[in-house]
């Protein structure tokens, strides 16, 4: 494995390990940014479950800031905002 590709039996293959940022800093693709409001969060973890890019971390030990979004890789798809039952996540245009 050499980052995004691998060489097996002298064949170059588009084969890689799923590591953080293996496709580059995809956060630069973002047009809209999900913003978290801790006060409205009911800790249901739906955003963590649904995030297609696995960029939402749950902080079990820190109830006052229950989730963290990794903006280096969040593409701003808005799925987390859509599934949030209490509007604790909102989509704000990037400037």
């Amino acid at each position, binding site marked *: 494995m050499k980052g*995004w*590709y691998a060489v097996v039996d002298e064949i170059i293959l588009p084969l890689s390990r799923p590591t953080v940022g293996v496709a580059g800093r995809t956060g630069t693709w973002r047009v809209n940014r999900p913003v978290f409001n801790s006060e409205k969060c009911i800790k249901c973890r739906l955003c963590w479950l649904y995030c297609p890019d696995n960029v939402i971390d749950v902080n079990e030990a820190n109830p006052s800031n229950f989730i963290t979004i990794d903006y280096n890789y969040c593409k701003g798809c808005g799925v987390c905002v859509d599934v949030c039952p209490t509007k604790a996540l909102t989509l704000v245009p990037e400037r």
Partner: protein
Amino acid sequence: MGLVLTTLTGNYAVSYAVKLSRVKVVSAYPITPQTTIVEKIAQLIEDGEMDAEMIRVESEHSALAAAYGAASAGVRAFTATSSHGLLYMHEMLWWVAGSRIPLVMAVATRTIGPPWNIWTDHSDLMDQRDTGWLIAMAENNQEVLDETIKMFKITEDPRVYLPGIVGLDAFILTHTSEPVDIPTQEVVDQFLPDRRQPYVFKAGDPLIMGNIPKDLELNMRMREDIDKAMERAKKVIDEVDFEWGKLTGRRYGGLTECYRCEDAKHFIIGMGAWVGDMREAVDKLRSKYGVKVGLIKIRYVRPFPREDLIKWLSNASSAVVFDRSFSPGSGGHLFLETVAHASVAGVRTPIKNCLAGIAGVDVTYEDIVDVVLKSISEVEEVGTFKEFIEWYYRGGR
């Protein structure tokens, strides 16, 4: 050697080949005239004669996706389709080849609509030429069975590691019964080694296939690697043919077979079931008309038998390539490739294209005799052809 022959349709010949190759996952969607291949396999599984999973899916795109997933996870996998189903599957063919995952598919070659038409031509098969799959085309049901088993060995050879198609003409082979020798399981087990592939996806050891490339030249090299593997496959196909011949007594030649070519001055080139009619035509042209005609049967479209064609055509007086598929605005697929490779090799032989049997139009050996006689007399009179691409209709015959 006390050979016991069984009457099998081409489709059932595929089914038994898949069973004997100990395929573990079969995934398919029904389409005429492929359906009885997987119907038979489903029955063999249900009867406990074959130990495999049958995945029923909602489309051909998913059929190949499921077989591809199974093959990536390390088992021998198989699917079969035809015509519109194959076109719907087309995107996944690129994924399997680009991932270098060995996998075998049967294609019951059938016309593409509109209008809806279930009869044979080679448009569906030839539409897959650029995907990176090996593509073989069978002449009879015995070759269908043999080539399917051999294709597993060829595709799983580390020098190749590419998927492969075995083509058989709609109805002419798929639904016509012929005597076929079904080899014993012991013979096939002796012939087929355990499955090999460049990597295996395992639970608990996640991998990504096809991540965004950070280096486009390396991406280009991956396509070049497929081309190199195709070149290496030529030798592998020869070796496997030889080995299968030792076990069963049946050798077909590698990428091509040349019939009565030794003293031939004029050549017929074609592939698929109508090669049988071309053999008849060669015999007739020699016995009745006294012309020295030979037949080059194309067994593999990919890799293309460039060297064989150049060898046979370089000292020939003329050749007619019969195509059952073509590219509108250009010409017949086999013709275009034959003349391109012959031309760069300095072959000056006049080569003509006969577009016939398209949309399933029936072509007999007599039609082939007519076309070849006309083309020979034209070359002998004029030295070349006035028209290099001819649409052949039987017309008033």
